[in-house]
């Protein structure tokens, strides 16, 4: 049994708040306009209006990252506020102190608490998919808040892909509803799909196109204005480290590069919600860190990510919310801290799924005695 890796352990509580930072929060435009600033400013033209801003979450005890950042930017010397979130700083901190890059897990914990108060951007209600008598997904009801990073975990065949496909409009549910910013995915498909970015697992890409062509193609199909497609393609390619590969056919890419170009394609129309099925599969560790960074930046700008993964480590590290799916039903959901309940996510997962107790049999597989 693999022990809980140290990196997956939650950061000790005191570290938070003790390293004040006046680094600007990564965001698209640090406007200081309260709750609305969390909504992504650069949305695809023509999409329906943004979800209505929350009544006034800012007025409560927790400022949003962006209000804080703008406040800090205006008053660099201002004392750390009630809840100052340390941010990863690749740049030299202005405090002059040596600053250890804060792991994403800390940001995730903090983000989770803030995001809980944001409006719900993606909601599934009693989403069900049955194949004959087999229930692939049963009554899945989840809420995803704006600016949150939600992980979907579950054993193999638990219904993660089924659920995510139903959310992104690729698999027709037997019953139930999916709404994105109030738009029903299954009755007003084209409008809802402008708000969703999708990365399915194990579906092909139009891989006879070159990388640049594929990005352009996805952008135009999603209704991005032509001028924006060019700049966004270039920036996405740079962010994902694909600049040198843009001229090559996607079919010649490695599996990880294909994943990255697909991810770039799913983001080109600046969706409200990213629905990613196994985004980190086949991606090398360095690129994974890079992709994580891009996704965190996207989330801090007000977007939401829903992703499935087998890696509980990863989910615990980068996600702020988590839903555990077993046999087609959600058996636990909420912020990562709430779900894991003091344990590591893996222990909690094993506890919930009951996977630990007694896989009896297979004793004959234990090998001959001289193998030790």
């Amino acid at each position, binding site marked *: 049994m693999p022990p809980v890796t140290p990196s997956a352990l939650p950061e000790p509580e005191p570290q938070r708040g003790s390293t004040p930072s006046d680094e600007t929060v990564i965001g698209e435009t640090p406007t200081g306009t309260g709750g609305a600033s969390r909504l992504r400013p650069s949305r695809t033209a023509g999409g329906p209006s943004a979800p209505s801003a929350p009544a006034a979450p800012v007025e409560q005890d927790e400022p949003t990252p962006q209000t804080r950042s703008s406040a800090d930017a205006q008053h660099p010397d201002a004392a750390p506020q009630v809840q100052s979130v340390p941010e990863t700083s690749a740049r030299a901190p202005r405090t002059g102190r040596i600053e250890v890059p804060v792991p994403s897990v800390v940001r995730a914990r903090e983000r989770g608490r803030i995001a809980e108060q944001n409006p719900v951007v993606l909601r599934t209600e009693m989403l069900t998919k049955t194949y004959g008598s087999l229930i692939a997904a049963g009554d899945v009801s989840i809420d995803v808040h704006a600016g949150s990073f939600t992980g979907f975990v579950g054993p193999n065949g638990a219904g993660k892909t089924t659920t995510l496909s139903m959310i*992104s*409009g*690729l*698999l*027709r549910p037997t019953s139930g509803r999916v709404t994105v910013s109030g738009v029903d995915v299954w009755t007003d*498909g*084209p*409008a*809802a*799909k*402008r708000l*969703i970015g*999708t990365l*399915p697992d*194990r*579906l*092909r*890409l*139009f*891989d*006879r*196109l*070159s990388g*640049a*062509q594929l990005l*352009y*193609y*996805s952008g*135009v*199909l*999603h*209704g991005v*204005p*032509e*001028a*924006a*497609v*060019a*700049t966004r393609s270039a920036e996405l390619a740079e962010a994902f480290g694909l600049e040198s590969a*843009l*001229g090559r*056919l996607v*079919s010649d890419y490695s599996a990880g590069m294909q994943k990255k170009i697909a991810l770039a*394609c799913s983001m080109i129309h600046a969706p409200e919600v990213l629905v990613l099925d196994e985004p980190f599969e086949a991606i090398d560790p360095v690129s994974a860190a890079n992709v994580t960074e891009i996704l965190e930046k996207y989330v801090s700008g007000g977007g939401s990510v829903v992703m499935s993964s087998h890696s509980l480590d990863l989910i615990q590290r980068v996600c702020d919310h988590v839903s555990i799916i077993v046999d087609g039903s959600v058996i636990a959901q909420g912020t990562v801290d709430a779900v894991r309940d003091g344990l590591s996510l893996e222990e909690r997962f094993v506890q919930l799924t009951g996977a630990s107790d007694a896989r009896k049999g297979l004793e004959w597989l234990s090998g001959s005695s001289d193998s030790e």
Partner: protein
Amino acid sequence: MAFRLFRLRVALLGGGFRGSFGKALRTTLLYALLAAAAALLAFAPTVLVRDARERSVVDLIIGAAILLGVFAVPFFENRRMLEPRQLVQYPAAPGAIAASLLLSTVVTWPFALLVIWLGALVAVRPEWHEPGWAAPVAFVLAALFAVTSARVTSLISRLLAGERFAGALRTAGVVLIVALLPLAVFAGATVFAPGGFDAAEQVADRLAWTPFGAPFAAVEAAAAGDVDAAGTFLAIVAGAIVVLLVIWFPLVAVSNRRIERPLSPGVARSGLGWFERFPARPAQVIAARQLTYWARDPRYRVALFAIPLAPLFMLLAFWVAGAPLASLAIVPLPVMLLLLGWSQHNDIAMDSTAIWEHVASGTRGRSDRAGRLAPVLMIGLPLAVIGSSVTVTIVGDWRILPAIVGMNIGVLLVACAVSCVFSVLTPYPATRPGDSPFVQPQGSGSGSGLAQTIAMILALALAVPPVWFAVSAILDVEFTANMWALGFGIGYGLVVLTLGVVIGGWLFDRSGPELIAVTQVFD
């Protein structure tokens, strides 16, 4: 304004001679050859055609053909012509620009060639010298008509197509010329064949009443002493010139007040292949993607190999059975076009699971359906036009050309329409992307055969009306029936194709997720 433009024109005349000595020499030789050809064109009939009456007919047809060329060619190819928009920044009224542009056209190489030809005509036709005024007046009018028509058609083309579609228009022009070549050769052959002259005379009689043939008819009539008829013909030309002028002046004003919608400054579409040539809208990018696939993916090409073979075998069978070869020549082209359109009845399965991108982006089914037609139509339409002309040449009766064109285009569009619907309705396993095109797809059960058969039967059934009208027009050759077959074939084809796109698109909108599921099963 006019004076400056004349100076510009003179400078442009010399443009070809500047640069290296070799280039100047080449240009000189080229123009010398062209001038010689123009003179020869006027001189050749006097040698080749001895009979005076026949020569007048030949003169009229050649003259009308040249004026028609002057009228039509600038519509497709006008890159080197000055246009009013180039002068819009100068302080001159649109009327002044229009007038001076028109007048200064006299100082261009094409006009010089025209003058050489007309002058040679006057010189080598002593019979036209009889009423001294007739030939000069007629030919001056002909030259004026040439100038105004070239100006107007080129400007119309610029306004309609603009910079962006100029390339497509040039391609269309080349296709038309290729299609017309066999016809022209064939027409020439029939005229010089025994008994073929009557048809030429009929054509000449008709052409005389158009502005293209009227100047030459006027000269003939005046030479024959029929001054009234000559006056009528001249009036036709003059009337046409007036009409063109009435179009020209407002058109210049319009052209100088409008601009094409500029491309956005951020748009830098380079290295995108076909995508550069299509606007950034869903149906168009799907068309570009499909064209890219046809070029890159061998699966599509392999499917095309069988298409020319099938009609060959059919012909062989008919020939063995003893059917007359000339009428059989009508058969292969519609069969090929039917197969070409029908070959796309499983195009969604060819994309395999990649179709999810269309579903996940909320692309309208109509855009998907319409975009996918691009490669077939880009191959099929030129094939239909050029092939029809070849067919008519083999059959040996150019009067049935409209019916043949109508039938072929109708059949192609109907087959495309059926494919549009069936590729959504009954996808069956296709060779997967990346597999060898000769690999048998996995799990092709009874469904594939059934879908293919039904699609083919439906395409055949829907193709009956245009073929029916075309065949009746071919059996009983009559001008109106032929034109009706042409119009009906194209119109009916368009209606059926639109229906196919709409129905196919509606099905696609409804069954997008199911299509993904089906392709996942095959994959």
